């Protein structure tokens, strides 16, 4: 009986893991157990079924179509049939044929690459990424080992560079990133996975296919292989050059145009083709002593180009990294929509992050933030960060952490934030490295704007209020908008507020906040007050309460 209880329990576990139990293939010697397993399936049928990944219908069509052609149906998993050809031989044969038809021109080079790539089940290569500056000085930025197949699975291992040792894998079921320095394995869903890695052959060919213009510019030798060089003008974006291997008709090297005084050249220093990626390369295995982190909101990438491809825009990069800081990492965060460039100080004590994303909403600063300017745009300045809005709201808790400051603003359809545990003037240096306009941080000087009607203040009462807030009561007094809302609401209903406030929080806008004085403007017709003037009377930091010192009535 004990044994049957265990078997039944393992059967349930297997179904819960969405795997085929061995009992479905092998006959059971216990009719009772078989009946109970049948009952498990019946009960489980009340659940909504687990559906396959989004690309399943495509895989299904390819596999079923292949079987239709082959007219052989075995009971095994058949995804691999496409890769079942001897890829190297096929590429070679195809190339021989294509050599007769390939001459410079859009259709032919795209066609040749597409046909050659069709025959590739998988490939294994070593990529080098070289950075060239304006003086023509070259530095090897990274070396990476890559495996990729035509079903979207891949393996990338950073061999050299600032992310040395990091391994990123997508095996079709899950995607993970092994970070040896942190002893952590970050797990992501396998889909959607918009971008694999720089110079991934499939993506590269698609980019050329979609280009506005393709121009042959000559021949060259790359990594000992003869290559035709083409200049590609994408629809939107800068022209770049691509080297196509004359023998395999597949991309061998790409060089981007010089941007921000830096040019990248990515080269396959070696590449070989095979039927598929070896199983052990794609097997998920948590190394001993490593912690698995699920639902990681960030994905580390190797370079700006990868970050841009994933996020869907080219992020701004500091023209000159402020003295004393060095690049630490590049990541994509917030549902892969925001880029995150991290810099660390030489003594490793301070870290500054530049976050960027496409602006989706009108810029609304945090109600507790000091307001400044970046260029002509309003900037939200928080020291420390108290509310994580906009690009700061990315699943990572910046707010509530001591000594973390941020400056956030929008410019030409993008939202930016520079955030870090560094002094405010160092954050400003980072902003100046990506923005042309001046950065204005309020100095906290007395405001020149005076209320039409002054409200008398009892400092003794305010001191007691401050103590009460320090003890954890009425935290809303730290938010000038809430304080103004309560003030205006009591003007409307002097006898007290019941239910909802008569003026909405959304109708109130901070038009000035230098950290000591604030002015809140109220829109709409429901209010007798147009502007509320507030001041931090007791303590002038983020823990100081706001007090109403006057107001302007509706004219």
């Amino acid at each position, binding site marked *: 009986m004990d044994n049957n209880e265990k078997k039944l329990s393992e059967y349930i576990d297997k179904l819960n893991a969405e795997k085929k139990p061995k009992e479905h293939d092998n006959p059971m010697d216990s009719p009772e157990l078989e009946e109970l397993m049948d009952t498990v399936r019946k009960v489980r049928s009340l659940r909504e079924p687990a559906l396959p990944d989004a690309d399943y219908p495509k895989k299904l069509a390819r596999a079923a*179509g292949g079987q239709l052609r082959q007219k052989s149906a075995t009971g095994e998993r058949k995804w691999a049939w496409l890769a079942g050809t001897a890829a190297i031989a096929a590429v070679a044969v195809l190339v021989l044929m294509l050599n007769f038809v390939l001459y410079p021109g859009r259709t032919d080079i795209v066609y040749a690459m597409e046909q050659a790539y069709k025959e590739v089940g998988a490939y294994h290569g070593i990529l080098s990424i070289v950075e060239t500056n304006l003086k023509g000085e070259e530095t090897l930025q990274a070396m990476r080992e890559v495996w990729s197949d035509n079903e979207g699975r891949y393996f990338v291992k950073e061999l050299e560079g600032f992310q040395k040792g990091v391994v990123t894998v997508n095996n079709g079921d899950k995607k993970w990133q092994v970070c040896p320095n942190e002893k952590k394995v970050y797990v992501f869903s396998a889909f959607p996975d918009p971008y694999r890695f720089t110079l991934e052959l499939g993506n590269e060919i698609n980019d050329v296919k979609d280009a506005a213009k393709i121009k042959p510019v000559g021949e060259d030798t790359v990594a000992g292989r003869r290559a035709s060089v083409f200049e590609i003008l994408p629809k939107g974006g800068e022209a770049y050059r691509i080297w196509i291997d004359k023998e395999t008709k597949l991309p061998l090297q790409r060089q981007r145009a010089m941007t921000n005084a830096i040019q990248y050249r990515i080269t396959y220093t070696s590449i070989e083709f095979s039927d598929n990626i070896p199983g052990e390369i794609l097997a998920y295995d948590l190394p001993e002593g490593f912690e698995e982190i699920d639902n990681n909101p960030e994905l580390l990438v190797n370079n700006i180009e990868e970050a841009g491809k994933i996020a869907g825009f080219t992020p701004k990069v500091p023209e000159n990294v402020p003295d004393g800081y060095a690049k630490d990492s590049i990541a994509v965060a917030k549902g892969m929509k925001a880029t995150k460039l991290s810099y660390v100080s030489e003594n490793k004590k301070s870290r500054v992050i530049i976050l960027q994303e496409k602006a989706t909403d009108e810029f609304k600063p945090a109600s507790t933030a000091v307001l400044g300017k970046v260029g002509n745009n309003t900037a939200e300045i928080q020291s420390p960060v108290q509310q994580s809005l906009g690009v700061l709201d990315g699943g990572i808790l910046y707010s509530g952490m001591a000594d973390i400051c941020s400056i956030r603003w929008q410019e030409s359809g993008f939202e930016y934030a520079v955030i870090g545990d560094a002094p405010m003037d160092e954050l400003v240096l980072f902003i100046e490295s990506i923005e042309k306009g001046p950065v204005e941080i309020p100095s906290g000087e007395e405001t020149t704007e005076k209320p039409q009607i002054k409200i008398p203040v009892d400092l003794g009462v305010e001191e007691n209020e401050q103590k009460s807030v320090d003890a954890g009561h009425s935290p809303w007094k730290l938010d000038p908008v809430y304080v103004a809302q309560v003030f205006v609401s009591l003007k409307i209903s002097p006898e007290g507020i019941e239910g909802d406030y008569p003026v909405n929080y959304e109708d109130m806008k901070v038009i000035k906040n230098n950290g000591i004085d604030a002015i809140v403007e109220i829109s709409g017709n429901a209010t007798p007050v147009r502007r509320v003037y507030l001041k931090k009377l007791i303590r002038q930091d983020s823990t100081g309460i706001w007090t109403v010192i006057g107001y302007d009535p509706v004219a």
Partner: protein
Amino acid sequence: MLKEETFKKAQDGDLKSIEEICSSTWEAVYRFIYYKVQNRQEAEDMTQETYAKALSHFKDNSVKIEQYTGFLKTVALNILRDKWRKKKRRGVSVDIETIKPEETAVEDAAETSAQRELIRKALDSLNKEQRMVIELRILKGYSVKETARMMKKKESTIRVLQYRALQTLASILKSDD
């Protein structure tokens, strides 16, 4: 809506047409299979086998378009039955010629709905502890360890409880057959 031309092209092995057919019909077929096997891995494989068999058969015969999903489900059902039979070492191959898709489709919907009602009723007749263990382990998919923690019981007790609960359910469902 799938066009007759798409089916014709699919018969000739045109990948785009096969993709079109698969993308508009796969979910009903997959759900039908999943309902029987209750795991994603097997359901994906069997859906694939179903399409391979159906398309292969389709190449030599003609089936009305509107009956296609019903036809696919019937192929799937026959593959399922065949598998169970083979498991019991009494292998019988699928006789695809005898399929009446319109019957399968109707039977399937009515049968499923009635079956679910019976299962729900059977679950209601379990005692509180038994029902809870079934809900946590099978309907919500918790592990024995998690279930034990939630029910404040030993893991071995959970295994005994779930075994007995399933025995009770099996006997209720059997008496309803």
